[in-house]
């Protein structure tokens, strides 16, 4: 097996183990920590595909932003120090059944499919190209995203700020 394939499988395993652990773990802090592994592994796979900008963004947004907020929220919850059973799982068997079924279907399908191959550019200025694409071809989704983020921001503020006294 070539070295680069080995690297891929290593990170893929990291993603799978991290994600599975995050889903199964009973302890919220551990779940968040394992999610860190999963998200970091995804970033590594992006980097492996020479999409270094996407890899970096993935790290900044998911690892540095979202996951930190997760941890922060988890630590603000009650009785965090004995959180070992704060996340009890219910309906394990049906869930496992459905997941395994879906896994079977997807595994079968992805083995059967002749995937479309794209040439992976060897390094190069992906940042520049992405920036150009985002501000020309995809400027509309890009701008709509700002509305989306604004809506999310407003929603979060509305939900978390002190309530104004009723008139």
């Amino acid at each position, binding site marked *: 097996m070539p070295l680069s394939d080995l690297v891929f499988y290593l990170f893929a395993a990291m993603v799978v183990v991290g994600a599975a652990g995050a889903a199964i773990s009973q302890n919220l802090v551990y779940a968040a920590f394992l999610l860190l592994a999963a998200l970091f592994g995804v970033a590594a796979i992006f980097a492996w595909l020479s999409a270094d900008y996407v890899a970096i963004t993935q790290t900044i947004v998911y690892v540095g932003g979202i996951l930190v907020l997760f941890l922060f929220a988890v630590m603000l919850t009650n009785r965090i120090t004995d959180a070992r059973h704060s996340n009890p799982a219910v309906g394990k068997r049906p869930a496992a059944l459905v997941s395994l079924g879906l896994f079977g279907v997807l595994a079968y399908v992805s083995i059967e*499919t002749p995937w479309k191959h794209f040439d992976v550019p060897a390094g190069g200025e992906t940042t520049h190209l992405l920036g150009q694409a985002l501000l020309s*071809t995809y400027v509309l989704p890009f701008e709509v995203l700002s509305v989306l983020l604004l809506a999310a921001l*407003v929603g979060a503020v509305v939900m978390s700020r002190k309530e104004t006294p009723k008139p």
Partner: protein
Amino acid sequence: MSVNELLPLLPAGVLVVFGLLLLLYEVFSNQSEQRRYSAHLAVLGFAIALTVVAFQLRDPTASLFLGPGGLASLVVDAFARVAFILLMVAGLVACLLSPGYAKNAGHSLGEYYGLLMFSVAGMMIMVSAADLATFFVGLETMSVAVYALTALRRRDVRSTEAALKYFLMGAFATAFFLFGLALVFGTVGSLHLTHLAEAMSTGTTLLREPLLHVGLLLILVGFAFKVAAFPFHMWAPDAYEGAPTPVTGFMAVAVKTAAFVSLLRLIVVGFDGAMSSQTGGASWTVLLEALSISTILVGNALALTQRSIKRMLAYSSVAHSGYVFIGLTAVAEGEASAGAGILFYLAAYTAMTLGAFGVLAYLERREGGSEAERFGAYAGIGFRHPAASALMALFVVSLAGLPPTGGFFGKLFVFSAALRAGHTGLVLIGVLGSVIGVYYYLRVIVAFYMRDVPEPGPTPSATPSAELGFGLLIAAILVVVLGVVPGPLIELGRAAIASLG
């Protein structure tokens, strides 16, 4: 690209600008003023945007933001414009229904209307997107804004529960949708509807690939969540019950309309030719059929057993999704007139559902108390609030699909198109569902008019707001007009479907 080329998007732009204005108004207005003009500002925004669309209605199809290969990521055609009108009318009426209610619940009004306008802008992107990536961005803009809207009454346990359920289920659906997108991209190599259509047209080997089908299936699941179709409807009753009532109306109507209209575009443009049975698309029609049958039966059966009017309306809206799926099945078979029927149905559904929830919002305010949603609590309401009850009767009759209302013609157009496509069995199920529907819808009228008044009844607690009355009036007029002169709208719908090409 010059500014003129962006004019077809002006309505969405107007909504976003007014949303921002509302946020600023909220910040800078005097506290004692109570921001009483928020609703008016929002209504003004919708009115301006509607006027713009009305002027542009006959404009030629505009393709915006050309990407590689000269393919537009956004297509504002007659279809999109008709959808714009539907969505904005829903937004406008929802705004009118809200003020008294929102003020009573102590909300931040600017944010409320701002989020509402942002979500409508997102829906407009959804219905005009010609590429699934753009579509997804619109979908998320809509969803996030509506999640926040459902969570506005955060001191209320049920509202919080509703918001959480809706949010979690919505996020789950988004994950499915996104995974589907990834798989489709993996097989087709593009997310543009034109490329999808090329890939799926007769003769390509792609269609034999299971991966594409799994991807499309996951996308369909995402849609099914948004419209609360059968196995994915569980969130609907709780979310509808707990959310602030005007928001429930908006959620039931606008989100569903946006999802169905864009699904219609996806099927007509993206699945072009793939649905006919020769190319292996038969399984898709079967799937849509199964969705519509199960949704109709389950929705109606569960609506029968409900004791709360809001929950009953929630399940009945599940059933209505099923009726629309009948139309979609026909569209997938190549019966274009079903598309016009769906648009008509959605218009009628918008008016009558918003109206029904509006009356509930009105009664909640007047009667007070959170238990007011039970059927029993409405005993004798018909005599205490004659006007509101009469309107409720109208909306309920329309929801049941009885003439001379919009609901009747909506069902008629959809069912007759399905008959032309040869789906007799499906139509029979639909009619059966409607008959069940008549029973539980009439229960509302029975409760309103034919039960003894238990006591003198509580005194009205708040004065009705003029805006609410105005909103209900618009909804009622729409229901009646659609029921008496359905011609113009169905013509518009045909033109819209024709513009999809």
